[in-house]
């Protein structure tokens, strides 16, 4: 039973963690009309 739960947890971590590490790192804009 425990092995089954651990395997399920490992599967969930492998699915969720790449998305959790995803992020926008930097945004740059060119603008007109700035004073």
């Amino acid at each position: 039973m425990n092995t089954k739960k651990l395997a399920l947890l490992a599967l969930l971590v492998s699915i969720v963690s790449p998305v959790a590490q995803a992020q926008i790192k930097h945004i740059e804009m060119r603008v007109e009309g700035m004073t």
Partner: protein
Amino acid sequence: MKQHLGRQSGVQTVEVSLLDGKVEVTPKEDGQIDPAQLLKATYDSGVTATEMNMTARGKIVKDSSGSLALQVAPNRSFTLTPNELSKGLEDVADAPKMLTVRGELYKKPAGKQKADPSAPLKLLILEVQKKE
């Protein structure tokens, strides 16, 4: 404008260069930043954005219409504008691979055509910096 953008959710710092007409935004790590909201806030502050580029780390997925998209948060992804670089990413779609890419999210239409900052932002990949 600096204060206006700095108040948007997920924004850590805003650097404005009057000389170059360049605005650099560093997001917080909370993933709350919304480029479309930033673009709208820029227009709301009376300034016209001509271009918006983004560097992001994410996963290539296929959206509901079958188009490739870069997922940067569980609830945020940007559909890719097809180009040579995006074609090369089809083999990693829905794979557990993380990519760091630099791309163009918005460009003001040439000529007198009116810009629509509320249109959905699509990502034109300019450079794939890292595949993990």
